[in-house]
């Protein structure tokens, strides 16, 4: 009995998650006439115009390119600096590594506004304001720190015996990292990178303060569409929201796998 009730509650909750998402996707294919109705309309004449309008707008294309360039670059910087550090913390723990872990975590305590105002003046001062490079460097702080944090458990799960065996075979410490630990932990690490990507893809406040036109990322472009005046083109807005949400959702499988391996029993 209790089990059935529990299951019904859980399915209702799943509906609470999927309902609004599906509704937004449906609305992306509606004209304003079908969208702005006192009674929500399930049956209507679907149109593709919103989607083609959004994809055809130069500002959206520009935002998409900016977002992709900025996110991929900053995630890559996060990999280059974050993974070796995470490995060192995981495999060579000493009294410093705990302090370093805390330092990396404490970077997350900083309110984004506090960082964004001075950064705006700095980038203005050296002529890099509203550029992709400025945002890539700014976001590197986020990607490096989250990569360190999420990759530590990934490296800890690599069986020590494998690394010992490689050492016996004559691998030096760096070769053990590059040719053994890295490939073995790869699956978990990909999940960590996916989290890092989603984090910067979704970032809004700093992008809002550090860009005005040429380096605007997709979240900013999408949010500006809602301020197009009194005649809000709701269908177009829905289409933009769907486009903006697609990349993180495409990573869903990878992220769920990451959660499974991180929280599975440590004794593996």
């Amino acid at each position, binding site marked *: 009995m209790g089990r059935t009730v529990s299951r019904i*509650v859980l399915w209702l909750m799943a509906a609470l998650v999927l309902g609004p998402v599906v509704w937004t996707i449906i609305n992306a294919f509606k004209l304003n006439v079908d969208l702005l109705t006192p009674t929500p309309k399930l049956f209507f004449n679907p149109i593709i115009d919103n989607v083609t309008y959004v994809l055809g707008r130069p500002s959206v294309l520009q935002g998409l390119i900016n977002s992709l360039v900025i996110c991929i670059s900053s995630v890559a910087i996060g990999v280059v600096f974050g993974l070796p550090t995470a490995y060192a913390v995981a495999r060579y723990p000493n009294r410093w590594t705990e302090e370093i872990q805390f330092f990396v975590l404490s970077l997350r305590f900083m309110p984004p506004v506090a960082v964004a105002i001075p950064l705006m003046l700095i980038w203005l001062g050296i002529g890099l304001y509203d550029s992709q490079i400025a945002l890539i460097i700014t976001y590197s702080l986020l990607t490096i720190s989250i990569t360190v944090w999420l990759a530590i458990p990934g490296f800890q799960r690599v069986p020590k015996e494998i690394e010992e065996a490689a050492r016996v075979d004559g691998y030096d410490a760096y070769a053990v990292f590059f040719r053994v630990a890295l490939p073995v932990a790869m699956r978990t690490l990909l999940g960590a990178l996916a989290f890092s990507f989603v984090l910067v893809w979704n970032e809004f406040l700093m992008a809002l303060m550090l860009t005005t036109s040429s380096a605007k990322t997709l979240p900013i472009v999408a949010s500006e569409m809602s301020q197009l005046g009194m005649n809000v083109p709701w269908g177009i807005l829905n289409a933009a929201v769907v486009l903006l949400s697609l990349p993180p959702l495409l990573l869903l499988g990878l992220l769920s796998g990451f959660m499974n391996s991180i929280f599975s029993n440590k004794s593996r």
Partner: protein
Amino acid sequence: MKQRQALPYTFILPTFVVLAILAFVPTIYAVIISLQDRTLSAPGADFVWFKNYLQLFGDRRFLNALWVSLKWEVITVTATMAVAIVLGILMFDATGPRMRNTLTLIFLIPVLLPRVCAAFVWKFAFHPLYGLVTYPYRALTGKTLDLLADPNAAIFAIAFVDVWQWGFFFAVIILKLLEALPPQPLEAARLDHAKGWQIHYFVSLPMLRTALISLVFVKMIESLRSFDLVYVMTRGGPGVSTETLDMYAFSQGFIESGKISYASSMAVIMMIVTLVGFTLLWKKVK
């Protein structure tokens, strides 16, 4: 052998230096700006030392923003944890492997959505004339219901979206934590005829104490990032009823008067409070 001793340094030191530059340069500069009288319109700046800070404590809108932020933290952290614990336990107790996997995937969706998107999706759902959420109310009473324009309800409507994003995500984490527990203590409790909820209240949740406290900690940090939701849904309105600290700092610096020094002094206070507060909390938890 020498290499093994050198590795931690070559792997940690460069990263540490990069992070330190990226973090300390802006923070120190933020403090300097907060002691000046910079505005967006004028290029020059003079030092006014603590004038901005003194002015802040006479600024009723700032005190209001402090209060709103505090309310926001309490509402979102407690609601997220409550939702997550209940749903996590329900999944653990009542589902088989297949349903569990499906739900895990579904429950991860909200947190992955850009906050701007989540805010927009729900803003439209709360729309008084056309919204999906307000539809039953319209149909039953014939009146309109504008949650986001109600000074008392607006903050809860925004908090709902925050909990929608984080509660389901944390539910999945709590499910994974429950799955990773050793089964023997739960089995023993069951043999002692403990009921479902008793088992969790007396056995499994206490075993997860440290993990749950860490989750509360993470949520407290993430709740500080309310800006995206507030900016899209209400812009701090109606009036100042949903104006959190970062929203107020942003509007002082960028929307209304361009007083970036004043905004920066607010941001510095936020930074000091969160750094000191969270560091103390973290050390205590450890």
